[in-house]
């Protein structure tokens, strides 16, 4: 796949075929390796935390690992198609804040049922994603700048609506159950997460639209010459991201029992981390939903596990007390390592072919 950099107009469709089919074996083996590496990392984490931590594999804690990170998991799923197209969406965390506040207003001040309010909140997320889509796909503006703008815009709107301080609570128990109860022994929101994961997986790996994401990320020009509706499909990735951010906001509010303007603050970066850790190229064109799930899991287990280590000290404090700082550091290291693996492997392979 590295050899086909220059191509004529009439060659593009064959090229795209190459991207999607012929180039697959080499790509696939690379991805498979990446996923295997991640699985090993996760297994090591589990072993480490089970031996050093307190009640790490306890049922409640395992539920907590997922319950506390499911919003970031959802955002990571939403971010995967976007990054596959070579784009980025920095606005999803702010979108969560806006959707959370709107949800609170709908329930508390407009006396709507939580279900209707949740649908409307997802609708607002979709609209916000639509704005990103319009600017990026229609007007061809750079995704980084567009979503940096909407990142501030959405958070600002959320803060304006609450005057920075107001928060909404007093939601019915039936709604809070979405964030705090179990269905068949698994946190209720995890079922939603699994559904979304399945949906995104089908979209990306089993549907033409989803496959076109990678084609667009690999070469937008090429994709257009191949007859792919680039603008429509690109826009779809951002609209979907907005809608999922809305859903994540509703789930977060159900877990906390409170809707505030600063909901989801910083989550977009954690989601991007999970996606890139999962092996999706930040330049677009290659990656998988399975990788994203593993990347997300690696980060979620790390975050939770460190906070279980109470018996060992670091900087004169139990590790559990510096867990957040430590997990930030380790996540960063993990990410840098994940990024270094591919060039390293390439360099090694190059050396091997020389000798």
């Amino acid at each position, binding site marked *: 796949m590295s050899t086909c950099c220059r191509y004529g107009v009439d060659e593009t469709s064959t090229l795209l075929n190459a991207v999607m089919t012929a180039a697959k074996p080499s790509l696939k083996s690379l991805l498979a390796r990446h996923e295997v590496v991640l699985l090993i990392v996760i297994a090591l984490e589990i072993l480490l935390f089970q031996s050093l931590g307190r009640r790490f594999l306890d049922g409640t804690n395992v539920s907590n690992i997922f319950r506390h990170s499911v919003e970031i998991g959802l955002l990571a799923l939403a971010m995967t198609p976007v990054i596959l197209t070579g784009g980025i969406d920095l606005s999803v965390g702010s979108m969560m804040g806006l959707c959370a506040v709107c949800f609170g207003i709908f329930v508390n001040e407009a006396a709507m049922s939580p279900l209707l309010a949740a649908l409307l909140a997802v609708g607002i997320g979709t609209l916000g994603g639509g704005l990103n889509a319009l600017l990026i796909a229609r007007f061809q503006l750079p995704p980084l700048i567009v979503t940096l703008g909407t990142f501030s815009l959405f958070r600002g709107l959320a803060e304006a609506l609450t005057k920075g301080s107001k*928060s909404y609570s007093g939601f019915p128990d039936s709604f809070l159950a979405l964030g705090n109860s179990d269905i068949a*022994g698994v946190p209720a929101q995890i079922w939603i997460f699994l559904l979304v994961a399945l949906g995104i*997986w089908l979209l990306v790996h089993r549907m033409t639209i989803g496959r076109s994401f990678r084609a667009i990320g690999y070469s937008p020009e090429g994709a257009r010459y191949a007859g792919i509706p680039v603008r429509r499909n690109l826009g779809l990735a951002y609209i979907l991201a907005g809608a999922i951010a809305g859903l994540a906001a509703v789930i977060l509010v159900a877990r*906390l029992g*409170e809707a*505030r303007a600063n909901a989801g603050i910083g989550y977009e970066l954690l989601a991007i981390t999970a996606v890139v850790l999962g092996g999706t190229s930040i330049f677009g064109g290659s990656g998988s939903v399975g*990788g994203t799930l593993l990347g997300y899991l690696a980060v979620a287990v790390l975050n*939770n596990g460190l*906070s*279980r280590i109470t018996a060992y000290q670091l900087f004169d404090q139990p590790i559990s007390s510096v867990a957040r700082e430590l997990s930030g550091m380790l996540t960063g290291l993990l990410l840098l390592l994940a990024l270094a693996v591919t060039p390293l492997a390439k360099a090694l392979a190059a050396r091997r072919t020389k000798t």
Partner: protein
Amino acid sequence: MKRILCTLALCTVPFLSACKKSGESAGGEEKLTIALLPKSKGNQYFVTCEKGARVAAAELGAELLFDGPTNSDPAKQNEIVENWISLGVDVIAAAAENKDGLSTALRKARAEGIEVITYDADAQTDARSFFVNQATAKGIGDALMDNAASLTGAEGEFAILTANLTAANQNEWIEVIKARQAEKYPNMKLVDIKPCDDQKDKAQQETTNLLSAYPNLKAVVAVCSPAVPGAAEAVKQAGKTGAVKVIGLGLPSENKAYVKEGVTQAVILWKVEDLGYLTIKAAAALAKGELKAGAAEFDAGKLGKLAVEGDNILLGTPFTFNKENIDQFDF
């Protein structure tokens, strides 16, 4: 195919591990585990609280877990509490950043049989047994008025700087100040109340206006913390250092320079370290069943016997920081 397998493997993790029983991980030792949740971890105020808490935990031979959010993510406090629930701590002492949100998690803890106490900032009353109240409105108002009176010889004009005219806390304190003045200091006169929007600059500007409008002004009483250094700066720039006394409610660290220069005479606040100490003492007593609803007083070790009003454990009268003692405090 591999991807499907990976995804499947991922899905089985919750099921597999849910099967494992927690078993004997908590057994063996009888050491009490107390978890202390600050509003935010880096805040010097709560770091000082933790210092006092450590002293109490050492006295009790209890294990103290101290953890809190490092940013403004409203989900963090809940996550920390839920982590503690599954860690199986004995008692949680929390300062609520988001009252309603945190209450959801604290109620969960209580449902799991974990004792819950709040300090500094209360949660909803059904989410905890007791609130360690660092200062009542009466205590704060009286301390401010008494200090103003003793500094001015109990006569002359004084003005109040507040956050804004609708701030509930501040208005409560101002009412106490007025009542105290009417009752004990008839020769003093409250001439004006000015809002500063919780901003130092605005407080400085308002104080400058007050100084020119009331040339006989003897004291400025600031009831919100940014107003104390703000008022001091204005008095200093007007060349009225010492002639117009500045007192207020605030952190010693923010006012240290002015206090040493003699611009600000008194800063009122509770001893934050004692708040942490008392919180842990009360939390431990609650977990051991020594502190029960309806108690009238609580034996807080080195702090002596403290009053309990309803479900509020009172830290007592606020402390006055002045030139002589302010160097001993670093919050």
